[in-house]
């Protein structure tokens, strides 16, 4: 037994080394898939994510021939006593036109909390053609108990939106966020509605914050 196994041991070692290399490679590959997936989705728009910072308006002539229905859906999440409401459930827009709609955040709980509305677009290819000039979704929001806060979304569907897309649904899901000091927090001093209050710096970083 020793003879054979030992005779072959350099070969065995070589095989083992090769398999270990593959092994390490595959482990790295699994982690590499995470950024690859993000890049892939960004290029193709496949996961319906929109840009995380403000984009500029594309100046193009409004295509009055086409009308697209833009729907807004809002969802809360478990353990977050907040409500997010769209002032208009749906609007009819022409590609190229820029539109402003309003949303209201309400903290129904008895604690100040930080949360963020995370957008998702269906059908996902439309996400490449939805430009947001201003959106509350670029920042975290902090609301005191009972506080409410009105914020605008300014968006444009570009004219190269594929012909077959007649309806675009934009879903906002509220997620609680950690209240760490490093979190960029957009706050409103008082609950008074006003569009200027909602217009946050577009960078997404508001380091002053309150926390």
């Amino acid at each position, binding site marked *: 037994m020793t003879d054979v196994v030992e005779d072959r041991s350099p070969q065995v070692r070589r*095989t083992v080394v090769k398999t270990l290399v593959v092994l390490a490679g595959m*482990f790295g590959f699994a982690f590499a898939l995470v950024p690859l997936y993000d890049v892939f989705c960004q290029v193709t728009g496949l996961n319906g994510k929109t840009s995380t910072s403000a984009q500029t308006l594309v100046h193009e002539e409004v295509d009055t021939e086409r009308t697209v229905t833009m729907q807004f859906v809002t969802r809360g999440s478990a353990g977050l006593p907040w409500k997010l409401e769209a002032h208009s459930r749906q609007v009819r827009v022409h590609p190229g036109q820029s539109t402003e709609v309003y949303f209201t955040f309400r903290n129904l709980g008895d604690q100040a909390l930080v949360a963020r509305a995370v957008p998702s677009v269906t059908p996902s290819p439309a996400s490449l053609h939805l430009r947001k000039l201003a959106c509350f979704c670029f920042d975290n929001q902090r609301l005191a108990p009972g506080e409410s806060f009105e914020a605008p979304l300014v968006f444009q569907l570009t004219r190269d939106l594929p012909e077959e897309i007649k309806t675009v649904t934009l879903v906002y899901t509220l997620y609680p966020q950690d209240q760490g000091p490093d979190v960029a927090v957009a706050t409103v001093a008082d609950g008074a509605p006003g569009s200027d209050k909602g217009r946050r710096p577009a960078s997404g970083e508001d380091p002053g914050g309150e926390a």
Partner: protein
Amino acid sequence: MASLPPKHRLESSASEASSAGHDEHHYRPGGLMRWVLTTNHKEIGTLYLIFSLTMFLIGGVFALVVRAELFQPGLQLVQPEFFNQMTTMHGLIMVFGAVMPAFVGLANWMVPLQIGAPDMALPRLNNFSFWLLPIAFTLMLSTLFMPGGAPNFGWTFYAPLSTTYAPPSTTFFILSLHIAGISSILGAINIIATILNLRAPGMRLMDMTLFVWTWLITAFLLIAVMPVLAGVVTMMLMDINFGTSFFNAGGGGDPVLFQHLFWFFGHPEVYIMILPAFGIVSVIIPTFARKRLFGYASMVYATASIAILSFLVWAHHMFVVGLPLVAELFFMYSTMLIAVPTGVKVFNWITTLFRGSISFEPAMLFAIAFVVLFTIGGFSGLMLAISPADFQYHDTYFVVAHFHYVLVPGAVFSIMAGVYYWLPKWTGHYPHLRLSQWHFWLSMIGVNLTFFPMHFSGLAGMPRRIPDYSLQFADFNMLSSIGAFMFGFSQLLFVVIVIMCVRGGKKAPAKAWDGAEDLEWTVPSPAPLHTFEHPPQYRPVEH
């Protein structure tokens, strides 16, 4: 134990000086320590098989809890929370604790014997990879007693169910999967190193039996995808404990990414559980048909193509997550493509049987049942592969019927066929014929009674993993539950048969079956602890 005399230490230091440490040829510790420290491939194979059988029975009890609750509509026996833990633990234990270790155990026993090697290439690593398993699964089972209960998110542990909404025991579950994964990886390295380097002089790759071939390919699959599983659970661990957001949409992550990563591992994993089964059946059928295997080379190529294609089909588990049309089409067609090499295999088995001089020993009964019932599972798989149809079938009992047909009368039956086939070699006795036949028929009827009605309840829309159901599914579910108890209890008969066979029975000669031609039948029955210490004279057979 105290029975470890100084002699052992002396010898190990002596052999350390002479470079290889693993040869304890002349001395063996006795009693329990003999099993704990063994580096012998046959003893380790036996340990794996006993471990697997234990897990099979534990996982079976969990399944019976599920089926008992589903015997009637309404909630009778368990709370929904506990029901979820039972479905989850059943799946995890059966996949990682029963089926995979059973195949590794068979590989340990039979690969060296079939290639004429004295042992596995890395005997001490072999011991280590076995002993990781009891640790992993003790840990996994202990989560049942932890506050908040065991994992309850299904064996596929989709995030965020398994991260944001998971019970606290999830961290232990992750650790146990890591340990079990390391065990599989080490086992795979060992098998590859053995097959590639320790074949008897003159044995070319294309002379190997199909069991060895399928295991070689399976081992490569394991090396390729177990690290991905390790990566996924590591990301979960970080999401849960270190505040990262790999899969948390609230932090910019993506739960769908979890499914991509999981199924990139998961689909090859299902082939890890079936390729060795193909190998076992491909050695049993020629033996009892007393013919050479039809299409040996095409079997090898079909196995390799299935393995390669298995990396390109993962999203057939995700047809309803909102894939773009091109992806739906790609994964639909690539999945159907796998049916081609699979069909080649079924064709070859049937052609091997054609005009053979067939006898129906218990091993052969299980092998033939495998061919028939696995094919049914393949067909339901094809139905699921039709992406528009899958929108209806997904997450219903139809899927449950599909994968149980490929896994129970598929993988599990092949393991039983292998056990009945090789028991004479392991123990020197034939298993009790009458009882084995009873075991076969009870299992056969039980399995079909359990899983066939699930096709219908699934098509009628019964969702999976739910402890209650509406009244129109009652009859099908009652049948399924009766079948499940029948199948479950007939496995006790299997335990009895194996124990009886170890203790005595009709003596088996070296060549226990008259149509058996592979190398393992040239060593005495029971196989002595050390075989092929001098490489056998191998005469290539024309396949």
